């Protein structure tokens, strides 16, 4: 059986929180699920529940990346560049530009 590989990308703060929950939901369904916080927005610090979600996602071989150093340091996310993200997307079965871009 070939497992699905899904990458969700977020460009709005509110979408980030729900989008990580969405990635976790897919990981629970036996998919490789990744989230990427793009250049925008500047994140808020994860609360305990959100930090736990990230930990659970990593336990299931998923992960959350961010394209800015600030967001990586704030919430212990893995750094990724746009070029690296593009290459990663080539390996995905499903690519999901999540929600909206904040105006």
């Amino acid at each position, binding site marked *: 059986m070939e497992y*699905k590989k*899904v990458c969700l990308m977020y460009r709005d703060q*509110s*979408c980030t929180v*729900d*989008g990580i*929950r*969405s990635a*976790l*939901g*897919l990981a*629970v*369904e036996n*998919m490789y699920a990744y989230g990427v916080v793009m250049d925008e927005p500047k994140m808020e610090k994860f609360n305990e529940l959100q930090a736990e979600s990230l930990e659970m996602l990593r336990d299931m071989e998923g992960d959350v990346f961010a394209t800015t150093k600030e967001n990586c340091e704030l919430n212990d996310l893995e750094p990724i560049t746009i070029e690296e993200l593009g290459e990663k997307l080539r390996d995905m*079965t*499903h690519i*999901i*530009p*999540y*929600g*909206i871009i904040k105006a």
Partner: protein
Amino acid sequence: MSKSLGIFVTNPDQFKHVMGITKAAKAKGSNVKVFFSWDATHNAKKEAGFPELCKIADDVSICVDSYKNMGYDIDDIPEGLETKKMATQAQHGIIIEDFDCYLSL
């Protein structure tokens, strides 16, 4: 036989496209499932065409946690849906695993 289509909706401003694509896919004999999450659950209460979408598509459900987060009472079930369609992110998993084609809006 027409391919099946699953639509995952997270942007509340895309309802017009959800309807247009669902109608076009149904006209081609497709099996269409739509799942609304986060901000897009507003569509279930604010879009006049939502009950019609529920009739046209083969399956429509919303994320009940998102609906609650958007300030709605989970017992206030939108017209066109049943209690069991106030669902979880597992519906998204079904779209990815079981449908031939995938679209996020």
